[in-house]
């Protein structure tokens, strides 16, 4: 991916919407295009979390394994979503497994590289943290709603 292409692709992704151009330029060095076939495992639980994905096309299932239930999908992510934040939080290991449900194209950002850039440029670091925190908040809310099991005992 050329630098111009990488900057354009990153800028078009909702996660980096309205990010300053100088910051986008800093991030392009950490980015690469990736492609996963349907059924391909993107990462496994417990493995080092070195990458962070911006999904451009396709669908990814985030899974875990539950005794007596087998592999269970916790969440499906799609175009415009981000996949993974374990690269940001120690001990930098994936907490779940991710698998492409269909052909999926994404931009992979090197987590170590990103952490380095954030340490060097705290403005970029703060901006990224705000955006990640927003995603985490949304997913936490969704998880809470999921835990409430709201469909129990509802009117006909």
């Amino acid at each position: 991916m050329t630098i111009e292409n990488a900057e354009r692709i990153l800028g078009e992704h909702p996660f980096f919407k309205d990010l300053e151009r100088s910051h986008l330029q800093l991030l392009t060095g950490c980015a690469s295009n990736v492609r996963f076939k349907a059924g391909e495992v993107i990462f496994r639980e417990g493995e080092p979390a070195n990458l962070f994905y911006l999904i451009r096309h396709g669908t990814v299932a985030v899974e875990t394994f539950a005794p007596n239930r087998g592999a269970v999908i916790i969440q499906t992510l799609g175009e415009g979503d981000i996949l993974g934040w374990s690269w940001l939080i120690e001990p930098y290991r994936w907490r779940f497994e991710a698998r492409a449900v269909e052909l999926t194209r994404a931009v992979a950002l090197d987590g170590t590289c990103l952490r380095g850039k954030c340490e060097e440029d705290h403005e970029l670091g703060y901006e990224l943290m705000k955006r990640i925190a927003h995603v985490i908040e949304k997913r936490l809310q969704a998880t809470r709603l999921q835990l409430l099991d709201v469909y129990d005992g509802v009117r006909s």
Partner: protein
Amino acid sequence: MAFALEKQAIMAGLSDPMLPSPFCLQRVRKETYDTFTLELEPANGAGEFSFAAGQFNMLYAFGVGEVPISISGDPSKPQTLVHTVRAVGTVTQALCKLKRGEVLGVRGPFGNHWPVEEAVGSDVVIVTGGIGLAPLRPALYHLLSNREKYGRIVLVYGARTLQDMLYKRELEQWRSQLDLEVDVTVDTAPASYRGNVGVVTTLIPRVQFDPFQTVALVCGPEVMMRFTVRELEHRGVEPENIFISMERNMRCGVGFCGHCQFGSVFVCRDGPVFRYAEIQPFFAKREV
């Protein structure tokens, strides 16, 4: 109060809104392990049962009791009265155990309806969860049979699992239509499932509609509706354009007994469909 009762009676075309009419069960379709769709016809040879999308009836299992159940059939086919019932209590269990040819009592239709006329010219986003799809199905039938009058039509439907989904065959048919966007999600699924997993609110940011020219129709568990309204507002839909169907303890159906009081309104008489802007002050209040 007497005036309201009379008005409801006239609207319902009934001489006495407290008197159930006998209806004969024609067909029962099992939707899920505990939810059934009942098709009814008048047992006394009475004519068609006209209703508007969003209204409900009081269904009476003789000798057991009466419950409010939304009408889930097509308003343009008033020959058959359709209700989808989830067997969760004594009365609903009795209703779901009825056999073809058996008779139950029906009072109604009661309440107001979805604003399908007000939505003309706009995009329509239907967000529903669980059995909340049943009260919205008549609205969807209406929208689809008047397709040219509306912009985008989007159905966002969530259920606990794949097994808990209503109207599976119809959902498949709707998904194949090019003039209707259908997004379905379940709260949990095995790894073999290829559809979307996540709560219904997570789909709202993904669907295509013009938030400034959209009417949103929402029905489902109250918690789900609270989260849904937040997401819709976040997308830019005004509270004036969000309509929700409320549930309270409806008994008489005509605003007489007061059991379904919700703030300053009665759900059976002034609802069950409310403009969110109008009930916003007490929608999330625990005491109401």
